[in-house]
């Protein structure tokens, strides 16, 4: 069907646009729902974008459409998925009259990787301190209720009037004005802004850090928390600082007394001087009510950091989180390690979690034999004559397996690669180059011990079914170990950005270490 290439890429709508979207409306506390809604993109399982739909064929049959691997590789390389998601979310949230012009503006101006962070937390947990430091380091614009009120524009005027009105009459402020103010996210210098509501150019370049105090007395108690948040403004990361109640109460008390530093003064300036203990407790109470809703709403991009730590620790954790970006891509994982390091076990656990295809080189030949295509023919010829299958053919079998629809679609995890440098180089050069390589580190003695233990299925920790099907006598293991050691340096040269993981610990910890690395994008590729 060469003539139908390129096929219309049938990005399965329900995959891209609906299951990757979860519309989470903040569960309202008591009042109106209409004001809050938040769109989220990229669920955890949204690592896989291209799901072939079934295409109706000429013969009234239905044939699954195979997406060529070049397209997945291209998508990964240029982060196309993220780009498309940004575009669609921008359109859905802003709803401009002219979507084409809007998209042109979006593509030409903003960089999609600018940090947009929301900082949440109960009163007195240390948000302002953290926010100031982050803004200084990241160069982002710090947006708080004060800066919103300082804004020179019309919306700022309205917000100020509202705030004053609230203080005087005690009525709830119109939540929508504060919402719209925060969505416009002005800079503290109140520059001019495009009337169509596009983002302020300076902020677009540098990013935005929105600090929001839940349960603080400044916010109207009648408005649901969601409306104070940047409802409708997409942001990429959310931080929730949390600490125990007694710690917070303690800190608050301390804050009131210390009027020397600018920080403390700002906190106390907004509340009446005779802040009794009940006032503090009620703020905390409000926060606790709202926080579950907010956490649920933001759960895909949320990280909770314990505020009851030294400030430097908090800061380090936060920066580490902000530097990582969730990337949606088809995982192509290569696990390398000496025999007995648990590659098969880890591969199984990872593939169960991410629904990847678990490709084992030991089973490759068996799969090839059963395969009806040309590769199966070749392998069968060798096996029928009881000859060992040469390396070249094994390479081809591997490539063919990785090119199949299920592998290119769901991703694969390859373990027990024949430790041949030629193999590794070939794999890297091909279309199926792995985008995550892990080296499991283990000393020789432990390897030998583990392989010996594996051979006795009475060991309760080892499932008899996972005993390796390759030859298991000690000599072979020692030989394989020797081969692996000689090739390690070469392999590390072929995959310079491979991650070394210590395999000499509980499998669960190893799994966690691998898992963490899998979703982190630390380099552009």
């Amino acid at each position, binding site marked *: 069907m060469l*003539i*139908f290439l*390129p096929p*219309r*890429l*049938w*990005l399965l*709508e*329900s995959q891209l*646009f*609906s299951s990757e*979207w*979860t*519309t989470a*409306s903040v569960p309202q506390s008591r009042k109106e*729902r*209409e*004001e*809050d*809604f938040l*769109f989220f993109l990229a669920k955890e399982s949204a690592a896989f974008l291209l799901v072939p739909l079934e*295409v*109706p*064929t*000429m013969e*009234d049959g239905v044939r699954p459409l195979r997406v060529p691997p*070049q*397209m997945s590789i*291209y*998508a990964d390389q*240029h982060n*196309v998925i993220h*780009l*498309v998601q940004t*575009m*669609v979310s921008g*359109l*859905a*949230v802003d*709803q401009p009259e002219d*979507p*084409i*012009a809007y*998209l*042109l503006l979006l*593509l*030409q101006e903003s960089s999609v990787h600018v940090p947009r962070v929301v900082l949440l937390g109960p009163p007195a947990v240390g948000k302002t301190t953290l926010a100031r430091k982050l803004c200084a380091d990241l160069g982002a614009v710090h947006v708080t209720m004060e800066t919103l009120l300082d804004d020179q524009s019309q919306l700022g005027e309205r917000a100020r009037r509202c705030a004053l009105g609230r203080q005087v009459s005690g009525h709830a402020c119109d939540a929508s004005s504060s919402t719209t103010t925060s969505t416009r996210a002005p800079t503290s210098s109140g520059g001019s802004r495009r009337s169509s509501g596009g983002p302020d150019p300076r902020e677009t370049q540098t990013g935005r850090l929105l600090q929001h105090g839940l349960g603080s007395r400044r916010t109207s108690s009648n408005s649901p928390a969601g409306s104070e948040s940047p409802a*409708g403004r997409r942001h990429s990361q959310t931080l929730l600082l949390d600490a125990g109640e007694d710690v917070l109460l303690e800190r608050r008390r301390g804050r009131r007394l210390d009027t020397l530093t600018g920080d403390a003064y700002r906190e106390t300036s907004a509340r009446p001087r005779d802040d009794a203990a009940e006032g503090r407790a009620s703020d905390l109470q409000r926060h606790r009510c709202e926080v579950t809703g907010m956490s649920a709403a933001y759960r895909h991009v949320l990280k909770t950091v314990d505020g009851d730590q030294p400030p430097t620790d908090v800061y380090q954790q936060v920066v580490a989180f902000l530097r990582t970006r969730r990337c949606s891509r088809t995982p192509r994982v290569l696990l390398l390690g000496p025999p007995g390091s648990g590659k098969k076990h880890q591969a199984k656990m990872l593939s169960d979690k991410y629904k990847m295809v678990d490709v084992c080189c030991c089973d490759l030949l068996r799969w090839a034999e059963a395969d009806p295509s040309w590769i199966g023919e070749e392998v069968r010829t060798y096996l029928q004559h009881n000859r060992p299958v040469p390396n070249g053919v094994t390479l081809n079998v591997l490539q063919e397996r990785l090119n199949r629809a299920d592998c290119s679609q769901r991703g694969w995890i390859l373990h027990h690669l024949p430790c041949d440098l030629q193999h590794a180089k070939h794999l890297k050069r091909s279309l199926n180059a792995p985008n995550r390589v892990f080296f499991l580190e283990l000393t020789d003695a432990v390897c030998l011990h583990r392989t010996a233990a594996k051979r006795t299925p009475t060991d309760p920790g080892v499932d008899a079914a996972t005993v390796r099907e390759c030859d298991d006598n000690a000599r072979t293991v020692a030989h394989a170990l020797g081969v692996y050691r000689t090739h390690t340096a070469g392999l590390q040269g072929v995959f310079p950005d491979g991650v070394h993981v210590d395999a000499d610990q509980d499998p669960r910890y190893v799994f966690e270490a691998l898992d963490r690395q899998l979703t982190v994008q630390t380099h552009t590729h």
Partner: protein
Amino acid sequence: MDVKITTEREKEAAAYLEKHKIFDLMRNLTSMLFFYRPDDPKEFLIEKLEQLKQARDQGQKAPSLLSHSNLDAAFGIVDPANERYVTFAQYKQALISLGMKDINECPDGVNDDKITYDTFITEGMLSLEKCSATYKQP
């Protein structure tokens, strides 16, 4: 879309996307992106969006992935004996598998169940233009 739509604003957003044919637009753009695989995806998208804008404002042809030659090839597949006409069912199936929607159910020759090559191409090009014009029709 099997997303649970609960609030008013979500409904508005869904209606907006429907009205401006955003899904079709995205589908077209990403198909072109993945076919041509340019080195700079943003530039490429900008170029295609400019073309689309001109198509909308000045009535020019909108950018699309498929062209006359693809339709030609599709006809060739359905008509291997080179009889220069196909049945209505084949005509419809061919256009559906090329990704067209809004296919004209009554092209010339439907009564005899003989759609000629020229009709096929004409109808195909019309559907193609409709699919590529992913903006709100005035």
